[in-house]
């Protein structure tokens, strides 16, 4: 197991080099970033001076190698816009994004499992048809549109929940301010509901369909029939014999799902004015704040790598037949 983990972590270095190089090249392919840092009336001399000040006058390989040299020393550079350490900027926004992602994940999984099981056990009935119809809709509706509709109907017309904004919980918790986190919690949940639903709908729909098909496959296995013929109650057959065995493909998807949710928050953070990493990255890309984009890419890549590693380890716990090589 340890050798496997070390090998996977070493592989992650190649991944980091690949994604940082790719994002670096893409950002520079989209024109000279200097123009975004000078006044619209700046003269050619002022633009040239800004180019030198920002370091964009140096050859691209040199700029990239400097970044990688900094990365090896744990320095991801300083934001060209705000003059703050880029990694600190990412980490300061990460708690808000994690709150949203975790909330959406919990919502999606906690609803997808019972809905998927219900659909599988009621296969061919109107209940199954209705669930699958909504699942198809949930995967088809753009999150941007859904977010705006929820915001306008639930937030503005019904005035049931806040339209936009954020109340922090994870950040005070990480800073050891437990009282503040506890005091914020009820309000934080209210602010989380609309953006959380917006993000969760796609994931919920996809996972409900996946769990349904996985359950249908397992329910047709001989050992399930045997369990039924032994006279075990239906609930025990479904939950203890069928569901656990249907979980392996689901866990694979859920591991990726968390990463998918993380990367998919940009639009929802924008619609609901959620101060997370998604908006930071989006703004950094439009402003060509390259150190911030690179710091975000490195952070997200590491999270994806660790998540996948976690999923691999979880396989072994779920199915002892699986071995890691």
């Amino acid at each position: 197991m340890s050798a496997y983990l070390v090998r996977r972590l070493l592989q992650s270095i190649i991944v980091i080099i690949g994604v940082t190089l790719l994002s670096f090249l893409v950002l520079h392919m989209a024109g000279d970033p200097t123009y975004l840092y000078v006044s619209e009336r700046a003269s050619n001399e002022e633009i040239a001076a800004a180019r030198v000040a920002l370091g964009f006058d140096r050859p691209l390989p040199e700029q990239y190698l400097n970044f990688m040299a900094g990365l090896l020393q744990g320095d991801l550079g300083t934001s060209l816009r705000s003059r703050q350490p880029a990694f600190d900027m990412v980490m300061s926004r990460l708690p808000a994004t994690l709150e949203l992602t975790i909330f959406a994940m919990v919502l999606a999984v906690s609803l997808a499992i019972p809905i998927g099981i219900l659909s599988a056990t009621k296969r061919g009935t109107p209940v199954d048809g209705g669930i699958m119809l909504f699942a198809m809709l949930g995967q088809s509706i753009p999150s941007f549109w859904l977010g705006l509709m929820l915001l306008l109907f639930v937030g503005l017309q019904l005035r049931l929940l806040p339209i936009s904004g954020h109340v922090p919980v994870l950040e005070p918790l990480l800073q050891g301010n437990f009282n503040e986190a506890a005091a914020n919690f009820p309000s934080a949940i209210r602010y989380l509901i609309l953006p959380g639903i917006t993000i969760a709908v796609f994931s919920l729909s996809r996972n409900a369909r996946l769990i349904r098909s996985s359950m249908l496959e397992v329910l047709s296995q001989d050992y399930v029939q045997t369990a039924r013929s032994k006279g075990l109650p239906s609930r025990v057959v479904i939950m203890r014999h069928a569901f656990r065995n249907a979980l392996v493909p689901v866990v694979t998807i859920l591991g990726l799902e968390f990463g998918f949710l993380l990367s998919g928050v940009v639009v929802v953070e924008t619609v609901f004015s959620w101060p997370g990493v998604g908006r930071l990255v989006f703004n950094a890309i439009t402003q060509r704040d390259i150190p911030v984009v690179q710091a975000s890419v490195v952070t997200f890549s590491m999270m994806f790598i660790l998540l996948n590693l976690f999923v691999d380890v979880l396989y072994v716990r779920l199915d002892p037949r699986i071995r890691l090589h």
Partner: protein
Amino acid sequence: MNARVKRLLAAGAVGLLAVPLAVSAQMPDDTTLVIAQSVDVGTLDPAIVGSRSEANIFGHVFGTLYQIADSGELVPYFANSYSISEDGMEWTFTLNEGLTCHDGEPLTASDVAYTFNRAADPANAFTGNTSGFVLPSARFVSAEAVDDLNVRIVTSTAQSENLRLGLLSEVYLHCEDYYSSLTLEEAALAPVGSGPYRFVEWVPDDYVLIEKVPDFTLREVNFERIYWRVIPEASTRTAELIAGNVDIIANVPPDQVDAVNNSGTAEVQAVQGTRRIYVGFQFGENFADSPGYDAIQNTDVRVALQYAVDVPTICSTLLGVECTRASSMVNPPNDNPNLTPYPYDPAMAEQLLDEAGWPRGENGVRFDITLMGPRGRYLNDEAVVQAIGQYLTDVGVNVTLDIRDWSSDYLPLVREKNVGPLFFLGTGGSTWSALYDMADLSAPDAGTNYTNWANEDWFALWNETQGVDPDTERTNVNIMLEVFYNDPPWLLLYFQPDFYGVSNRIEWSARRDEKIVVYSAALAE
């Protein structure tokens, strides 16, 4: 699920909905004003401020030497007067007595000198509005304290008095003791200002909170605190305004104006902004082989095309507001009153094009040309470019549209003067100086002379006008604008309208210059 669990879940849901929103404190009340902008500040260092969103906040936290009033008049603020040396190169400002920064440190002439010199110091490598535009444009060389109340600003050339005064009045004054003790990284996070509001808190991508300085006497302000919220999505800003959670929002999309006005809680104020929107005619020789380039080198063709575009209809249908067509590149009331906007008269356009030697061919086309334009920079820019293309096509000019993403594609091309032969663009203007508006064309090779226009009369007069008395300046400006009108490098369009949503609970008037200034904002009677 048994009945007990159901009851518990129901109680939890009701309890959750009953939780007041007070934990999120950014709500308007009798002493709190909430303003929503689309973009967050990127820094809190006054020397780096570059965007309009940042300047709106910093204008309340930091003082300036003079101030640009709503009317466009330059009025005394931290300085009460100034004098200019005979050669026009040294300006001495006299400060008011008793000025302080928010940490209690007296703000004296040496602090003002420090402010200017810090922004200009190449070692700091600042790229904001002050160092990247204001100081170079004002030909700043250095600043020094004469005594506690008098500060001398040395420049390299004489310049229009109003232009230089307006430029120098964009510099945010701060105290030396505090800022010289900080690294640049620290200064970007912890501002100590000098204006009527002090900085309290910045939650990135969420809000900036500022609160009233009780003993500030130079400006009367009504609200105790102001939240500057960041709400990037226009529909969300509109919803928050209608819900009463925000008092002022900027950039209301035209299609949401009716929703706001019909809400009963807020109204939209539409103002004719100062940003000049135009189509540039490219004179640069790198376009010499492009179709249509030869045609637009002819002054008569450029004048003819002015008649071909129905600007008022573009405004009313695509921008949601009635507008008057621009008659020059200068904002009213500083423009030439003797010039009238070109009317929409396609028959006249066709006649002038015939007379200029570009008649319709057998296929009905006079000449082919490409019109380049940005997507996502100006109000409904893509639709406006398409409309202009159609109007030109209607008079026989076969237009090919080339519309590109603003930041990644169009902006670099504009800055490299590599757009054309026709290109759509906007440029920021002012209410306080004709020369400021004309400074885009300060030299044939000026960075902002994107058309590469080289009219000798214009540039000779531009150079003559620097440092002359105000009457001569006015006369020269009027002559230059006539030159521009008769030999147009731009197809003149409109001054971009700005839409502000304002809650009915407050009284506040939007300005034309894109600045949000809320000193005088007050609760409605």
